C-alpha cells in the first residue's frame, strides 16, 4: 500500500517553478536564443506541463516545437529524440520509432534510445521486448528511472505484485526533491490497479499522487472515476467540475456528463456532453490516433453513437494490440468485458 514515499518539494512550488522555466524559455525562444539542448528541453517541459495540468494545447505546442527543431537542426540526434517523444505522446508510434532509428544513426546515446524505444513498445503492447530492455537497464544501473520503468512494464503485463515491488524499490532509490517523477509514478500505479479492478489500492496511489502534486489533473480525474465507481457521485462531480472547466482534454467533460446523466441532472449533463463532443471532433481531426480510444469511450457512453465508438475502437486496436484496446473493442461490440 502507498506509504508517504520520499519527501519532495511542495507541488505548488514545483508547478510555479515549472511555469517560470517554460515562460523564460519561451521568451528566449522568441528571440531565437535557445541552444539545441534548450529547445529539446523546452519540448520536454511543455510535454510535462501538458501531462500534469491535462493541457492538450501544451502537448501540441511541444510537438510543433519538436517539428521545428528537426527543420532547424536536422543533424542532431536530440532533435529526433524530442520528436519521437511527442509523436509517441500522440500515438504516432511508427514514425516515432523511425525517429529513434535516425537518432541512433546520428550517434545518439544507445541506452537512452533503448529506453525511448521501450516506452513505445510498451504503448504498442509489445511487452516482451519492452521488458527485455527495461530489465537490461536495471541490471546496468538500478536507479529510480530504470526501476520505475521496469515496474510499469510489469504492471502492464498484469504482474502487479512484481510491479509494486519495483515501484517501492524505485521510490526508495529516489534521490531528488522534484515531485514530478514520483507523483507520475504513483499515478501510474493507481491507474494500473484501477485497470485490475482494485479500487482501494487505486485510490491509495492516486491520493498519494494528488497529495504530492495537488494540481495533477489526470490523478484528480482518476480519483473522480474511483469515487463514481464506489457510488460517491457527489464527490466525483465536485472533483470533475473544475477539471472539465479548466482542461482542454474532453475526457473530464465526458466523465462529468456521464455521472450527471446517471444522477438525473440531464440539462447540465447535456451541456458537458456537447462540449466534449465538439472538442473530440476537433481533436480527432488533428490527432485521430491519440484520441481514438477516449473518443470511443465517449460515443459508447454519453455520446450515444455506438457505431462510431466501434469504428474508433477498431482504429485504436489496429494501432496497438493491448489488452485495454481489445477490451474497448469488445465493449463497443456490445460484448461484456472479457
Amino acid at each position, binding site marked *: 500500500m502507498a506509504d508517504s514515499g520520499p519527501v519532495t518539494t511542495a507541488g505548488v*512550488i514545483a508547478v510555479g517553478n515549472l511555469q517560470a522555466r517554460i515562460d523564460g524559455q519561451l521568451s528566449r525562444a522568441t*528571440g531565437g536564443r535557445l541552444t539545441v539542448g534548450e529547445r529539446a528541453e523546452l519540448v520536454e517541459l511543455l510535454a510535462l506541463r501538458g501531462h500534469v495540468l491535462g493541457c492538450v494545447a501544451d502537448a501540441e505546442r511541444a510537438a510543433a516545437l519538436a517539428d521545428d527543431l528537426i527543420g532547424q537542426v536536422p543533424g542532431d540526434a536530440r532533435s529526433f529524440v524530442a520528436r519521437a517523444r511527442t509523436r509517441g505522446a500522440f500515438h504516432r508510434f511508427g514514425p516515432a520509432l523511425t525517429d529513434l532509428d535516425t537518432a541512433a544513426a546520428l550517434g545518439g546515446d544507445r541506452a537512452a534510445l533503448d529506453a525511448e524505444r521501450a516506452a513505445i513498445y510498451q504503448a504498442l503492447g509489445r511487452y516482451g521486448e519492452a521488458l527485455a530492455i527495461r530489465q537490461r537497464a536495471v541490471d546496468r544501473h538500478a536507479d529510480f528511472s530504470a526501476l520505475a520503468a521496469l515496474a510499469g512494464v510489469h504492471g502492464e503485463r498484469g504482474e502487479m505484485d512484481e510491479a509494486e515491488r519495483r515501484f517501492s524499490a524505485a521510490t526508495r532509490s529516489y534521490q531528488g526533491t522534484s515531485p514530478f517523477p514520483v507523483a507520475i509514478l504513483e499515478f501510474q500505479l493507481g491507474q494500473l490497479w484501477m485497470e485490475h479492478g482494485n479500487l482501494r489500492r487505486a485510490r491509495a496511489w492516486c491520493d498519494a499522487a494528488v497529495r504530492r502534486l495537488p494540481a495533477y489533473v489526470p490523478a484528480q480525474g482518476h480519483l473522480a472515476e474511483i469515487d463514481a465507481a464506489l457510488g460517491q457521485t457527489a464527490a466525483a462531480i465536485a472533483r470533475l467540475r473544475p477539471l472539465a472547466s479548466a482542461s482542454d482534454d474532453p475526457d473530464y467533460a465526458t466523465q462529468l456528463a456521464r455521472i450527471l446523466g446517471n444522477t438525473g441532472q440531464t440539462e447540465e449533463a447535456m451541456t458537458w456532453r456537447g462540449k466534449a463532443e465538439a472538442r473530440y471532433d476537433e481533436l480527432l481531426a488533428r490527432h485521430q490516433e491519440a484520441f481514438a480510444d477516449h473518443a470511443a469511450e465517449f460515443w459508447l457512453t454519453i455520446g450515444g453513437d455506438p457505431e462510431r465508438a466501434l469504428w474508433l475502437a477498431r482504429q485504436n486496436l489496429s494501432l496497438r494490440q493491448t489488452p485495454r484496446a481489445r477490451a474497448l473493442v469488445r465493449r463497443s461490440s456490445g460484448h461484456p468485458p472479457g
Partner: protein
Amino acid sequence: MSDHNNSPRGVAEPAIDIGDAYVFPSPSRPGQLVLVMTVFPNAQPGALFSDAARYQFRIRPVTIPASGPGSRFEVGTDEYNITCTFAAPVTTDGAGNFAQEGTCTLPNGATVSFRVNDEHGGEAPGARVFAGLRMDPLFNDSTGYVETLATRQLAFQENGTNGADGWDILGIVVELDVATMLGRAPGTLFAVAAETVTAGKFPVRLDRFGRAFVKGQMLGELGADTVNRDLDLRELWNQEDPFQLAPNYLGAYRARLNANLAVMDGIDGKTDWPLQPDGTHPLTELYLGDYQVVDVAKPYTEDSYLEIELALLQDRAHATCGGRSLNDDAGDTNLTFVITGGNGPRISDGVDQATVRASDSFPYLAPPNPSPAVAGRILAPSKVADQLAFLQQAGLASR
C-alpha cells in the same frame, strides 16, 4: 558562471541548485560573521525555496599543521552548523500570491523564524537571518573565462561582459555573533561549506559549494586528464561530504585536478606551480578540501578571497580575513592564483563588479531586479570546449 546550472538535479529542481557561497566578517558590525548562500540561478519573481530540502552552512575549525607548497588545512571534527528549512507556501490573497516561512537552526541550537522576502528577516540572540529573492552578486566574464580554459590562452577584453548581468537569485543570509556562536572553538580559523540535502529520514546531498569555479572548471573536462577522459565528475563531487571525501572517487578527482591545474598554470606561458616529485600538483590537496577558510578575528576586507590559502602555500602568516566577500572579484583572484601563483600581474576578466554592488549592511545582497534577465536552465556541459559553444548558442557569450 560560478556553480550555476552545474548539477543535473539542480537543473531539474533549481531551488536546490547552489550558485555561490560567501563568508566574510560584517563590514558594518564588527564581531559578526556573515554567511551567504545563493540558490535558484536566474530566478524570476515568485521563486521560492524547496520545502523538501535543508539548506546548510557547515562550519568546522581548521588549523595549519604545516605550510609550504602542497600543504592543506587540517579540519577539526567539531561542527557549528546552521540549517535552514522552509515550509510549504501558503496563499495570502486571492491573486495566487504565496508566502513562505522559514526556520534557521543555529550552532547553539536556538532557532530563528523568518518570512521569505521580508527585508528585515528574523532575529534571535546572536543571529539574524534573511532569505528571499535578490540580485545575483556573481560577476565575471563567463565567456572569456571558458574561452581561456578551452583555448589555454588568456581571452579577456579590457571591458568584459558580466554573464550574470541583471540576474536574480534566491539568497540566504545569516549574520552570526562570533563570540556567541563560535566562541567555544579553539581558534579563529574556520572552514565553511554550503550544501543542500534532502529533508527525509536518510538525507542525500544534492549540491555543495566551497570555493568558486571548482566544479565546472577545475573539475571540468579540459581534455588533459588521461586517466578519465570522458567522466563528468560533478554529480559525484556534489554527493561528497566537503570535509571528508569518500575513497571511491578520490583517485578520479585527484587525477582530474592534477591534470587541469597543470594546464591552467601554463596559460601564461610559465610554470608557477612546479609539480611535486610524484607528479602531484601543489594545489590539488588544497582544492580537494572544497571549503572557504575565514579568520573571524580579522576585520572585513573586500578582496581577501584565497589570501589565507596563498599564505599557507607560501609558508607565511595570512594577513586578512580570507573567505569571500560579496563584492570580491573572486573570478580574477582565482585565475591569478592558479595561473600565476602570485608571481605576475593580476589577471582581469574586464568585469569588476556586479550589476549592483552588495551593501555593507544586512541583508547585504542587493534588492532584486524587478525585471530580471531571462536565461535558459540547462545543464552546462562538463567538457570545457562544449561550454564555450553552449554559452555562444545560449546568447550568453559576450563575443
